[in-house]
Structures are given as C-alpha cells and as structure tokens.
C-alpha cells in the first residue's frame, strides 16, 4: 500500500517536468514576443526589454533559469501587467476558480448520484427514463449554450439573478448550475450503470436468498461496490471541471484562471502562461494521484498489485 503511494508520487515528477518543458517550447514557438505588440518599438528598446526579462538568452538557458527560480517560489513577473508578479495573479484568481469548481462538483454529486441510484433501483420505470433523459441531455448540450440560456431566463427576463462577476452568493448560482449540470448528468449515468451491473452480481442474489431485507442488501453491499467505478472516474472529471470552468468563467466574467488564460496566451505573456499551465497540470496530476490512492483504499483487489 505504501509502496503504491510512493511509486505514484514519484511518477508525478516527470509529468510535471514534461509539462513545463512542453509549455516552454510551445510558447517559444509562437512568433513574436510579449513586446512585439501593436506599437512598433524601436529595435534598441526592444532589445533592452528583452534583455531585462532574460529573453535574449538561448532557450535552454531560459528554461533552466525558469526551473531554478520556480523551485525557489519565484515565478516571475507578468510581462504585460508589470506591477504584478505571476504569483500574485495566480493567488488572486485561483481561489475563485477553486471555489467555483468545488461548488459545481458538489452540485454534480448531490444531484447526479442520487438520481443515478434511484434510476437503477427503479429500473425501466418512468423514474429511470426521466433520469436517462436528463443525463443524456445534460451531457450533450454544451456549457456555452446552457449558460446563456440560463442567463436569458433568470437574469434578463425574470431579473432574479445577476448576470456576471462574482460579488456575492447570488452571483454564484448561475455559474455553478451551468457547470454542475453537465457534471450531474455524467454522474447520474455513471452511477446508474454501475449500480445496474452490481445488482446483477451473484453475491447480491446470495444475500437476498439468505433472507436479508432488500434495503439492507442495497445499503451494505450494492451501494459501496457501485460507488467504486464512480470514484475512479473522478480523475478525468477534474479535467472536465477545469475545461468547463474556462468557458463558464468566460461567459459569466468570473475573475478566475480560465478567464485569463486565452488572453494571456494571445498577448504572449510568457510568465503568466507558464505559471498558469504548470498550476493546472499540477492540479490534474494531484487529482489523479488522489484518485489512484483512493481506488487502492477502496478496492482491496488491486492493493496486491
């Protein structure tokens, strides 16, 4: 068990290094730099600016310098907003995104998992069909359609909720619902499928034959075992939350990481882009790690791997 954890943790290092490397190379591949913007700068000034930020050194030197500084907690200064360090920008934006992500994830679970359970237990009744309908629709209608529709209904027409930014609890509702709907649809489908499969298992039939009441069998055996695949799928789901949040933040002008990302890439703000990408990758890697370990904890069969 401990060996499993150690092994998994060690593997995260090459992944992170690869991410930094790839991002670095890709950013360098974009023609132009942070200072070749609309105003054409005289070449001497351009050279000076580049020298100040170390952009005139050979690429491997820049790369190593970046890693060295990053390890000391210095992610550099934003090249377009020169008064803010990358760390500042990230620490302002990250909590917002995290907040949104957690709420949406929570909503997804609270609605999706019970819906899936009910659908499986009442297989082939109207409850089941309703759940399938919801699950299919929730997944197929993209975020950027659901969001504007919700805004139109609740903010423009009914005026109940505000349309954008992030100043209080009313502002949280629509973005969370938008992001959470697709998640809950996914969870519902997953839970339902998993429970249906578990219900067919022999040990369930045995337990019922032994005379255990249906409810006990469901709670003690079926539920626990059905939830394992749901949890193991949670890793890629985090990726979904991250990508989904980019859009939702864009639509609702939520001041999180996603909103920044596209514009900083277009502006070639190297340091911010590097910082954001590394952070996002670290999150994904950490989530996968947690899921792997959780899987090992929950399913004794793979512990002896």
């Amino acid at each position, binding site marked *: 068990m401990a060996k499993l954890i150690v092994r998994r943790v060690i*593997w*995260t290092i*090459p*992944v992170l290094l*690869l*991410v930094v490397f*790839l*991002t670095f190379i*890709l*950013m360098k*591949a*974009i023609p132009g730099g942070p200072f070749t913007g609309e105003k054409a700068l005289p070449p001497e000034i351009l050279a000076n600016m580049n020298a100040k930020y170390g952009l005139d050194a050979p690429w491997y030197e820049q790369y190593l310098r970046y890693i060295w500084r990053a390890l000391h907690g210095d992610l550099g200064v934003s090249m377009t907003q020169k008064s803010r360090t990358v760390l500042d920008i990230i620490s302002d934006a990250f909590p917002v995104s995290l907040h949104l992500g957690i709420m949406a994830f929570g909503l997804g679970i609270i609605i999706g998992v019970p819906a899936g359970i009910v659908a499986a237990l009442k297989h082939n009744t109207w409850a089941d069909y309703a759940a399938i309908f919801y699950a*299919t*629709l929730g*997944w*197929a*209608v*993209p*975020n*950027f*359609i659901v969001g*504007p*529709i919700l*805004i*139109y209904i609740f903010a*423009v027409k009914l005026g109940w909720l505000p349309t954008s930014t992030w100043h209080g609890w009313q502002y949280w509702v629509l973005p969370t619902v938008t992001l959470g709907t697709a998640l809950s649809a996914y969870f519902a489908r997953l839970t339902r499928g998993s429970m249906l499969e578990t219900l067919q298992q022999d040990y369930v039939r045995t337990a019922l034959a032994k005379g255990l009441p249906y409810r006990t069998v469901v709670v003690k055996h079926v539920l626990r075992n059905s939830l394992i695949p749901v949890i193991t799928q949670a890793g890629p789901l985090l*990726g979904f939350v*991250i*990508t989904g949040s*980019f*859009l939702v933040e*864009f*639509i609702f002008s939520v001041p999180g990481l996603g909103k920044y*990302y*596209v514009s900083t*890439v*277009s502006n070639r703000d190297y340091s911010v*882009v590097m910082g*954001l*990408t590394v952070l*996002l*990758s670290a*999150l*994904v*890697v950490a989530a*996968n790690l947690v899921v792997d370990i959780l899987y090992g904890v929950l399913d004794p069969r793979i512990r002896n791997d």
Partner: protein
Amino acid sequence: MPLSMEKKYGAGGPAAVRQGTLWGDVVRRFSRNRAAMLGLIILVLMITYSVVGPWIRPYGYADLDWSIAYQLPNVQHWFGTDMFGRDLFVRTAMGGRVSLLIAFSATGVVLSIGVLYGSLAGFLGGRTDNVMMRIIDVLYGLPYLPFAIILLVILGSGIAPMLLALAFVSWLTPARLVRGQILTLKENEYVEAARALGASRRRLVTRHLLPNTFGIIVIAMFLEVPGMILGEAFLSFLGLGISAPDASWGTLAQEGWQGFRSHPWLIMLPGIFIAVTVISFNFVGDGFRDAIDPRTKET
C-alpha cells in the same frame, strides 16, 4: 431423430437451420433497438442537411443584408437570419459541414494513431509494452485545454490546426482500449493454433487479432465523435476556431453569444444542432455496443 429435436428444428434436422453470420446478427439486433435506429436516422438526416442544405435555398452563406437582420424563422428564411442578415438555414448547414468534417477526420486520425500504437504495444508485449504504456500514462497527466489553446494560437485558425489540437490528446484512450483487447485475444486458443501451424507474425495480426478488435474500434469511434464535436465547438466558441465568414457550429454559437441577451435564438440554433447530433451518436454507439455483445439479451 429424437422427437424434441424434430419439434425444434423441423423435419430436416439441425442442418435445416439457417446459418447466421456474426455481422448479420449484429445488424439484426441493432435494427431491433429503437433508440439506436432513431439515432441513425437522425444522423443520416443531419449529414444530408449539411451537404444538401446550402443548395436548396437561394441564399449564399456570406450574403449580408442588414435590412433583414435578426429575423426569427419565417417562410423566406426557414431558420431566420443572423445579425448581418445572413440566412441561418444555409449557414447552419455550412456549419454542419465543417463541424462534422472536423469531427470525423479528427476521429479518423485519433483512431489510426491509437490503433497502431495500441496494437503494437499489445502484440509486442513484455518490456516494449511496458514502456509504451508508461509513455501513455505520462501523457495522460497533461491538462488538455491549455495545450490546445497554445497550439491554436501558434498555428492560427483553420481546419488543420483544429484537427491537430483535437487529436493530439485524444488518441490515448483508443490506444489503451485496443491494447487491452489485443492482450486478451492473444491468449485465445485460435491464436496458439495459428502460431503452431506456422503463421507469421504479420499474418497473426492481420488475419486474427485485428478483425476481432474491429468491434471495439467501431464502438470507440462512435463514442469519440461526439467528444470531437463538443471539443471543436468549445474551442471555436473561445474564438480560436476558423475565421469569418466561414462557419462551424461553434463559431455560429460564438456569433450568437454576442447578441444573445436580446436575440437568444442565434445561440440556441447551433446549440440544438450540436445537442441533437451528439445524442444521436451516443444512441448509435450504445446500440452498436449492445448489438455486438453476445451477452446482451434480446428483447
């Protein structure tokens, strides 16, 4: 012949029973699945609309006419008009062409790479397999969206960059699936028998292993395409897709987004098409998977 057999097979005996083929069975079971057939019909309609749509109306997809902007569906413009007065029936069909083209090509690329990689890994086995799988594990850890965005900023707008951005991460799952299937199949007896008879490696792969992986590959395909459609729509919505006046469903949604507070129809229309297409692909994919799986009971 015993009476029971005679009752079951008729006087001619078991030889009189029609021999079914594997794919014949699959087709029959698929056609009994109502949801799957519905999905298939809708998909065919969707493709037909995308190809034929622009030809059956007299408007071009880039014809501007500000005097008739923002119309809801009516007799002259079956889907209404957009903010520049362009006919939406034609534009949505053009969008369909691009979105479906991108989705199918991206899936093709992804499957080719995935199948190649997966079957090599599965077949070669041992340490090569281990290394190849490790590479996949590491790549799995990369967050897809930031890299897709960076790629699109580098390569600019257009169909090919979009293809690349969509495909470069998605090949991992089919590769794993194919490898898993090949590993399972390799243990089967007919492979051993073929090898004992002296079949070359290439013959083993092409005549025995690959045809049996076909089912998994097709299922993977049906489940990848909707992801591609959504992915392309998503990236286009962020402004990274193809440039105006060309259209994809994603860019149409982007245009709709700009005026949606007063004219929500413009963003709902591509949304409906995207959702319906994705759902249909899901139905067809599920139906195919159930039809192929011999354990699924027929209703």
